[in-house]
Each structure stands twice: as C-alpha cells, then as structure tokens.
C-alpha cells in the first residue's frame, strides 16, 4: 500500500510498528508536530489539499489512509 509505505519511510517512524489500525501517538510514539509532518508528506506525495482543521484531527494510520484515499481517487 503506497500510503502506508510513505508513513513507514517517515523519519521518526519505526516501520515494524506501522499497522493499518495503528495510532500515531500510542503505537508509534509520535507527537502532534509529527502528525503535521506526516500529513504534509502525504499531501506532497499524493497531491491533495487538506484544510488545517481536518488535518489536526488525523491521529491514526487508518484516518490518514482513508483521507488520502478518498481525496485522490484515480491515483
């Protein structure tokens, strides 16, 4: 899954801890600043825009995947 691999490649992330239902903070030990970076990396990779108030609530891998997938249909 290309979305999951972007997350796995992220600098602060242990790829072995990334699961589809994982929580960024609880499972991966990331903080809010990391969430911002991850969302920005996904935006850059998959070319979508997300308003800040929606980006701020993404804190699980599932949410990130769902959001990315729903905004780039056809990619």
């Amino acid at each position: 899954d290309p979305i999951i691999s972007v997350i796995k490649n992220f600098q602060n992330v242990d790829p072995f801890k990334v699961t589809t239902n994982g929580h960024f903070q609880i499972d991966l030990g990331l903080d809010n600043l990391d969430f911002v970076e991850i969302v920005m990396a996904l935006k850059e990779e998959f070319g979508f825009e997300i308003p800040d108030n929606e980006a701020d609530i993404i804190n699980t891998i599932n949410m990130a995947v769902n959001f990315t997938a729903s905004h780039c249909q056809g990619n």
Partner: protein
Amino acid sequence: MGASRGPRLSGLQKQVLSLYRGFLRAARCKSAADRRQIESIVSAEFRRNSNQVDRKNFLYIEYLLRRGKKQLEQLQSPNTESLSQTKQS
C-alpha cells in the same frame, strides 16, 4: 518526547501546529539543504518549547507564536535564504 495531547486540540495548540505547518511549507520552497536545516531547527525549537513551557503559560506561548510568525515572514521573503538560531539563556 512531546507532551501528550488528547484528540481535541486547544485553540492555542492549533495555532502552534498551524505555525509549524507554515514553516514546513516555507522550507519546501528553499533548496534541499536549506529545507533540512530549517526543518531541524524548527522541529527542535517547537519540541523544546513544548517540553519546557507550561501549557498554561498562555502569555509566553502567545509571545512565542508572535515571534515565530515574524520569523516565518522573514523566511518567506525572497531575500532570506535560511534561519539562524539565537541562543536564549
């Protein structure tokens, strides 16, 4: 390790994240080396503040936000190439 936050962010936290996003966006317009430098300085500074500053210390946080916004504006100006750090005692 940043302070743990619940799923709902306070207005102040949102401003901090929005400022951080602004820095990341500005950094992406610079060269790759500048971008890495900016990202490492900004991320270290934000994290240090989140660890050292009491979350209830609104005045200081708002001061940091204002200062950060000015630095971001300077960064976005085409004359600026990179950030430099100032040591605070």
